[in-house]
């Protein structure tokens, strides 16, 4: 069994190490300092952060409601959280394209914000991919904290909001933080829905995963490797961050 675990480790490590076969060539360094590469890194970081921010703003109260209350349609809402996990990201992106061609979608585009082939489209695609996941992960963190803590806090004089931020939030903070980091990582690496809504315009809507795709499509191996390595670096840093959040408090 330990052998199997080592095999998986060697498999992934080998995959990453194989990238270094092309590292160091002239094209590699050029690709690294290329303004379009730097743009796609910056765009990915900003878009993923904004998308995660919105996912938390909406996901945290949703997670709390799903964790603490019984209400009509709770199971249906709970099931819908998994929609982005079960349908293909391209299908998700295509659904948005269809939506923006409906009268309501056109109205939003005309009078509100332009999404199709624009940066807000990237954020929307990433948000759609992670909102359900973020809610599900945060709900799991909140589920670990007994509602009795809040009940006692309320009997001691805290309002429901005070009981949440003085008791539940600090107790579940590490779990919530890990949920946010993982959601951010998923948004950062999102490709299918993003490319469908926002397209692949270098210097405008080209995020890192899209840039890898276009680099490969145009046989620019060095650029693809640079971007993959950066993506791997952020991915590993994220996972390390999640590990660092460690275990929570010992509960009674």
């Amino acid at each position: 069994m330990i052998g199997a675990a080592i095999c998986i480790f060697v498999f992934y490590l080998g995959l990453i190490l194989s990238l270094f076969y092309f590292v160091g060539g002239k094209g590699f360094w050029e690709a690294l300092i290329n303004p379009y590469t730097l743009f796609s890194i910056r765009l990915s970081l900003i878009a993923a952060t904004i998308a995660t921010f919105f996912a938390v703003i909406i996901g945290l109260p949703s997670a709390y409601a799903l964790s603490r209350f019984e209400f009509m349609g709770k199971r249906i809402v709970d099931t819908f959280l998994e929609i982005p996990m079960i349908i293909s990201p391209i299908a998700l992106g295509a659904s948005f394209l269809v939506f923006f061609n409906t009268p309501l979608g056109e109205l939003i585009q005309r009078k509100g914000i332009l999404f199709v082939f624009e940066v807000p489209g990237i954020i929307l695609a990433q948000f759609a991919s992670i909102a359900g996941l973020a809610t599900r992960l945060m709900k799991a963190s909140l589920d670990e904290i007994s509602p009795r803590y809040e009940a006692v806090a309320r009997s001691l004089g805290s309002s429901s909001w005070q009981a949440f931020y003085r008791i539940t939030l600090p107790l579940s903070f590490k779990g919530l933080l890990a949920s946010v980091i993982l959601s951010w990582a998923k948004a950062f690496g999102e490709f299918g829905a993003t490319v469908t809504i926002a397209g692949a315009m270098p210097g405008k809507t080209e995020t890192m995963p899209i840039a890898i795709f276009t680099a490969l499509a145009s046989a620019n191996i060095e650029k693809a490797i640079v971007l993959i390595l950066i993506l791997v670096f952020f991915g590993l840093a994220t996972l390390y961050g999640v590990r660092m959040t460690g275990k929570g408090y010992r509960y009674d």
Partner: protein
Amino acid sequence: MIRVEGLTILFESFRLMDFHVEIEEGEFHFLLGPTGVGKTLILESITGLHKPQKGMIWIGEKKVQDIPPEQREISYVPQDLTLFPHLKVKENILYGIKAKNLNLQAYEEYVQALIQVMKIEHLLERYPANLSGGEKKRVALLRALAPRPKLLLLDEPLSGLDPSIKIEIQQLLKTLHASFHPTVLCVTHDFEDAYLLGDKITIFIDGKIEQVGKRDDIFLRPKSKKVAQFLGLKNLFRAKVLGREEELQRLILNVNGLQFSIPESLYPDQIGVGKEVDLFIRPEEVMIIREGKSVKDSLKRNLFEGEIFDITDRGRYHVVNFQTRVEKIPFEISIPNYAFRNLGLSVGKVVKVALREESLWVMW
């Protein structure tokens, strides 16, 4: 005074209809009933954490059933205590005072006195994870009392403790109540706790209040066989009222051929001749008459000869199982150790036992 009236709770399979309880200021009131009868739900409804279908709750003259828990001035100590694990003991204790924006200085002396009574001075800088079971109980009690609630609700405060710790917490609760006189409603299934600590007890069985009364009323004079059985009372017999001794104002009861005499004056509601009743004799009120010792006239009315068939040493007292010679009626008799040693009892010995009339109790 705290009053709960017409409390109706329908929750999943649990149904409670029209529950009521009255608690005087400074009273230690026990809600005593078997496990699984919804006692915790009653507490949660009073504290506002569960919304009952119906019911009124008064704290003094103030109706509180429609206001949120944080405004009710009712502190709640659940069975699992739920000390806040991310806060030190000191922060846990002061939580209520800070949450209510009370003046910390005004409460300092009182909280210090509580800390001293509860003997937790050395624990203030610790986190709950580093406390023993007994220490956690003490901190949870103190945290609940610190903001001076109008009512303190305790859910099985003495369950899950080692016997020695349990005795210690019982004593602390007693001292705490004697020193600070909080108004307490405590739910438990343990009648020993209720007996030791309760001023007043409500017996709650199968969703119904069976009896409310002072401690001695409940334990010495249970209202029904159901209550007596729940309290684990021994020496319960089915009896029939044989007749009345008009001159002595006494009733004669028959238990399988053995006759007992009880004073009529104890029962304001008349018990008719021929009625089937339940007779209860307290094991600690049965006297074994020492050989050669004369018996007072008042005891002669319920004097029986028989044989000891079993003796059990229960540590602080002995339980002697006795059987009357006539009709073979078995009694359980509790005797303190010092008395037991003087009596020289052994299995098989023939002795006489006398029952004080007041120690007999009839339920119908």
